[in-house]
Structure formats: structure tokens, C-alpha cells
């Protein structure tokens, strides 16, 4: 599974902010056609993003595009222009499995016409209905990960974002929905770009809630989030022992893995693999 600790949102109508995106080592870069682009710039931004995807060096970052939602008149045109050049479609305000089916069908047509490999989708859950249907949405084969957005969701709930008491339950539901379908769970952004300590704590908390990454809105946030997702030395040491024990059991043809007299279950081995993956990239 790809590392998606950080996904950097970049407005799709600002070339100055796009030109160096490959330098910052975000796991993914999202060129945004949705909320950061005013209605009057939707057309220009779509063309700019299309050419940026082809010409800008994204470094090691995965190329994502957040297109406009399926209730807008823009999403099909967005897909047609950008799908050939990006790897993942970030789809806002997904509310049901049927929404995914509709987008899937449109993507399949474009992929067939252009001879493209199948692209992945990361739906964003931003409504109460979407949240209720999150497990079904995550089960769609196009879905690589499940993300969520706090502003729209709290608005839909009719509560102020800063005073909302329900967000940890929302987070838990996103994690359950994603993990039940063996998909990644992605937390939302931390919007105070000056508060490094707050960001670190937020990202570490996301990690321990079961998220695989968070969104970032400024390149200076990336390294801090990667640090927060970096396993501790103890975790790495423990994971190494578990993987070694698993290899040992495999060599000896044993079905049961044990370490220091303790039985190790397969999910624990999987978690150890993930920890080492997180550790090795650093």
C-alpha cells in the first residue's frame, strides 16, 4: 500500500504555488479544482491543472486532482481534462455507493478512450448522509482511501466546527469504514499553519486513531507530519522482532508465530510490516 501520510492541497488556479510542489516530498499533491477555485476561474483552472500535471516535476509525490462534486456542472469536464494525467481522483461530497458508480462509469469511458490504466478514487465524506453510507462507499473497488471534511459536515449537522463535540466519533466511523474494507483512512487538515507543535500533536493523534495520513495546506507542514507518523524507536525495534519471528516460523514451517513465549496473530505481523514501511522511508 502506498504511503499517504501527507497530501498537499494546492489551489488549481495559482501557477506560482504549483511550480515547486515536487520539492517538498509530500506523499501526494492535490491540485484542487473545487473549493479553492472561484466559479469564475473554473475553466482556466482546469486547463492550468491539465498542463501542470504534464509539465511540472512532482518528484516522488503521487499526482491527485480534486475535481468538483457530482452535483455541479463541472465534474465531467474536469475528469475529461485531467484524468489522463493524474493518478488519483479526489472526489468531494460523496454520499452513496451510487455516487461512486456514476463517477466510476464516467472514468471507465475516459480510461478506455485513452487507453489508460485504471485510476483510483479517494472520496471525501462531507455530509451526514455520506457518513452514514461511508462503509458502503469504501467498499467500492475504485476507492483507495476514505477522507473526510469537517467544515461541510459540521454545517450539515448544524453545529459550529470549533465547538463540535462529535468529531472524534466521525473520525472513528471513517477509520472503521475504511479499515473494514482494507482501505486507507485519511484525516482532514490542521489549518493553523504557524502552530507547529499543535500540528505535530494533531497528526500524532490522527495516527493513533488509526488514520494513515492527514491533509496539509502548506509545504512547511509536511516534514512535521512525517515526523509525527514516524514510529518510535521502541515501535521499530518491536516490529523488527515480530517480522523476524514471522520469517523464522515460515522457515521452520510453523503455523504459529511466537515471540518471547507470546503468540503473535497475523494482524500484529501486518501492523509490524506497516511500522517498518513507515520507518524505512525516513
Amino acid at each position, binding site marked *: 500500500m502506498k504511503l499517504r501520510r501527507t497530501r498537499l492541497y494546492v489551489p488549481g488556479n495559482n501557477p506560482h504555488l504549483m*511550480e*515547486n510542489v515536487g*520539492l*517538498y516530498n509530500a506523499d501526494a499533491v492535490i491540485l484542487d479544482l473545487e473549493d479553492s477555485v472561484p466559479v469564475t476561474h473554473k475553466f482556466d483552472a482546469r486547463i492550468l491543472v491539465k498542463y501542470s500535471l504534464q509539465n511540472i516535476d512532482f518528484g516522488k509525490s503521487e499526482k491527485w486532482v480534486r475535481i468538483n462534486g457530482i452535483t455541479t456542472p463541472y465534474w465531467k469536464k474536469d475528469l475529461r481534462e485531467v484524468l489522463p494525467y493524474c493518478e488519483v481522483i479526489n472526489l468531494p461530497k460523496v454520499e452513496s455507493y451510487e455516487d461512486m458508480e456514476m463517477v466510476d462509469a464516467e472514468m471507465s469511458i475516459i480510461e478506455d478512450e485513452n487507453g489508460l490504466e485504471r485510476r483510483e478514487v479517494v472520496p471525501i465524506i462531507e455530509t451526514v448522509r455520506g457518513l452514514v453510507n461511508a462503509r458502503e462507499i469504501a467498499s467500492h473497488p475504485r476507492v483507495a482511501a476514505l477522507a473526510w471534511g469537517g467544515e461541510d459536515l459540521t454545517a450539515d449537522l448544524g453545529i459550529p466546527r470549533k465547538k463540535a463535540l462529535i468529531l472524534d466519533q466521525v473520525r472513528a466511523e471513517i477509520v472503521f469504514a475504511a479499515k473494514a474494507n482494507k482501505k486507507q483512512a485519511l484525516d482532514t487538515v490542521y489549518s493553523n499553519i504557524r502552530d507547529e507543535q499543535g500540528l505535530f500533536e494533531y497528526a500524532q493523534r490522527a495516527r493513533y486513531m488509526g488514520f494513515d495520513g492527514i491533509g496539509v495546506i*502548506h*509545504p*512547511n507542514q509536511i516534514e512535521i507530519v512525517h515526523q509525527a507518523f514516524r514510529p518510535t524507536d521502541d515501535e521499530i525495534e518491536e516490529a523488527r522482532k515480530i517480522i523476524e519471528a514471522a520469517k523464522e516460523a515460515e522457515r521452520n514451517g510453523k503455523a504459529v508465530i511466537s515471540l518471547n513465549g507470546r503468540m503473535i496473530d497475523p494482524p500484529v505481523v501486518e501492523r509490524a510490516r506497516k511500522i517498518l514501511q513507515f520507518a524505512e522511508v525516513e
Partner: protein
Amino acid sequence: MSINAVGREVPSEINEVKFKPFAGDGKTPPEGRRAGSLIRMTPKGRSKIVNSLEEVIKKVGLEDGMTVSFHHHLRNGDFVVNMVMETIRRMGFKDIRLFPTALFPVHEPLALMLKDGTIRRIEGSMNGPVGEAVSYGAMRETAVLRSHSGRVRAVESGEVHIDVAFIAAPTADQYGNLNGVDGPSACGPLAYGMVDACYADHVVAITDHLVPYPAYPISIYQHNVDYVVPIDKIGDPKGIMSGTLRITTSPSRLKIARYALEVIDKVALKPGFSFQAGAGGISLAVTKFLGDLMRKRGIKASFINGGVTKYVVDMLHEGLVDVVLDGQAFDLDAVKSLKEDSNHIETPLAMYGNPYSSGGIVNMLDAGVLGATEVDIDFNVNVNTHSDGLLLHGIGGHQEVAAGSALTIITVPLYRYRVPVVRERVTTVTTPGEVVDVVVTEYGIAINPKRDDIVEAMRGSKVPIWDIQDLQKKAYKICGKPQEPKTTDDIIAAILWRDGTIIDVVYKVKKN
């Protein structure tokens, strides 16, 4: 005309004065004896206080064609240069040679005095509008730009003789003892003015803070000062502290700073090391990150040479550095520390990096981080002109830090506003590639091939290491090949290496 050691065609004469072509750092030995100033006497009981600029100009006997000097500690808040020059203009003097340590945008009114003949030529750094005017041919004679220490060398050797030095003094007593740490226009050290005070035929202090005798501390002493002119205001404190004083928040500039830090860490960082600090967003970030790293590693520096800012002062107070050597203060924290901390020492510019001396501070530096407007594939650096050929910046201490420091790092973005900064050939050579070790960009670093030791030290680093030509090609791939500036054959300025040889010239820019 001849071709110098960096391949530039340079004249043998500027303003009918002979100059040698640049032959390489340290390749042109000094000649002769130090120059001297007029021996003069202030009789016992005679007051040095003069109540107007006009009167003092009469007293010093200013004549057409003479050389007047100024220091730039008041930076973009300086009132003194414009005030004195306007008085000189009003009194009808012509053909003055202006010899400032640097000029700033606030000095734009001087451009008019180039036109009306008050000023014959400027020999000094020109930051901004005056440089721009000169680039388009506003000056009758050719400008001569020297580095900070190159200017000291020129004065000491007699290459430039100062007739009258006008010294802006944030604090003075009535008998001419001066300092920069007190008063409403406090600027910190008066390091740039010290050589002028010693070598000028007449020295005039201009102050807005007259204190009882004796002023203390003393930066410039009474025996070198002939007159003291009290005025209402010598400067605007906001403009005096006008360096770039905030750490950059640009992610690409921060990346440059982190790469520079990694190079310092691998090559120079050790207990007791020393480095050159400065203002400017990247430089401040390097200083701060270096402080963080030293704290983490438990490493203490022996000294920091400044350009002093709050970040340096904090390191001094925290005990991360033993001594701060200060030629220029960029904020009020630096001014306060210079006044109060005994291990924060004001250093005369003559001590900074004059090659024709018994050794400068720069010779003791382990690492120096410098900026540039352009860098080329021979590691030559331009800090004077922009890619359109306009002369918009002075040399500052760039040459001496590059030449003196054991590790010289140039931090630059790969391109600015879609114009490549790393290029095949710089528009103007200010500092030759032979004294530049590493070029750091947001895309990675290029190491001067002659520094095998740095190549070896950086082995295993995560910082991307490029051949400088590949870095230049990358810049051209993103931006396209830059156009040459549109210039005429007229030379409007000579850029001197710190030893007084001509390293390059600047040509007149055609107006569109």
C-alpha cells in the same frame, strides 16, 4: 582592454586612473605605504560645535571636485547624506566625488544631483534608484564599486583620498567622541565610519543626541573629529532597522536554508567553530536552524561575525557562542546587546577583511553563507546587477567572506520570476568561482569540483547533489534560456575585487 582571470574584458583605466586586471585572489601583492590625512590642530579652548551644515562646509573649506564620504549605518533611515548633499548643492559646489559606504533607496534625490553637476561621480555601493539611474547613463564619470574591506584598502592605500568625512553620529559629545548605541537614532556600531575618521582631511560629526563630555562608550574618538553639528534628526529608526529581519516563510527558501545547514553540519560544525551571520530571510533561517542544531548537539561556537540580529544575540545570551564580532547591527536587540554585553564587540571595518592588512576576521571563519543575484557554471557569483543589466546592489562584504571563510556557501533559488539564477554566465562577476565552494538551491546543491573534501564529506547525505551544469540546465528547462541584457558599449561602473583589481565592468543599459 585586457582579459582578466575570470575571462572578462576590462579596461586598464577608469576615470583616468590606472587599475590592474583581476589576477586571482591573493595574486596581486600590495605596494607602497599607507596614506595619511592632513595634520591639523584644534587649539585649546576652541569649540567644535557648529550650528549649521552650511557653516561647517565653509569651515572645512570644501571646494569643487573634492571627495566627501558617508557611512551607511543608518541604512534606509538615513537623513544625513541627502541633507549634506542638498546643502552642498545649494551652496553651488560642483563635481563632487561622493564616496559613501553604501546608498539606499532613501537616497534617490542624489540622482538629480548627478544631472545638475553637483556630483561628478559616486564611488560606493548603490542599492536601488541611484544605481538604476546610473545604469541608464545618468553619471558623467564611471562609478567604482568596492567591497566593504576593499573600500578600507582604497582609503588606506591612498587610492581614494577623502577630503571631508561627514559622520552621522547617534550620540556625540561636544568634543567629538561618538557612538552608535545610544540616542533616538541608535544604529549599533559605527564600524564603517572609523577608517574615514582616521584618513579624511576633515571630519564632521552630525548628531541628534548631544551628551555631556565624555560620551561613552566611544567608537570614534575626539582626536579624529574636527567639528560637531547638532541637528534635529539624523534618521528614522524604522528605516535604520531596515534589513530583512524575519525568517523566510517561503517553503522553497526554507528548503534552501535546510540544505545549507546540512552542508555546514557535514563540513564545518564542530566545537569552537565560527560563522558569518547576516540579514535576509534565508540567512536568518540558517542562523536559527544552526542555533537549534548546536543546542541539540551541545556544540558551542567560538564566535559569530555579524551582521548582528536578534537571532545572534539570543545565541550569545544562551551561551551557544562565546563572542559576537559586530560590524553592523540590523535590529534594536543587536544595538542593546552591543551596549550591554562585554562579549559583543564592535569591530572596525579595517579588521573585517582587508587583504592588504595583517589579517582580517574573515580569515578565521569556518563557514559563511551568502546570497547572490546570479551564479554561473564556473561558480562565479553576481551580487551587483540583475539579469536585465541594471546595477541595483552593492558588493557589501560578499567578497571578503567568500575569500576568507574556510567554507563558502552561496544560497540562491534556482530561478526568480521565471528567470534562471543559475546560468551559463553571470551578467556581472562580483566574486570569482575560485573562492566559492557550494551553491545551494531548493533543488539541491552543487559542489565546486576543486573541493574534493566537501564532496567526500557530503557522501551519504540526503541532500540532492548536482553537477552545476546540470543545475543550470534544469533552470533553463523550467524557464527557457535567458535573454542577454540590452546594453551599449559604454562602461558605467567598474567592479573591483577587494585587492583593487578590476574583476568586471557594468555596461549602460538601453532604455526600452
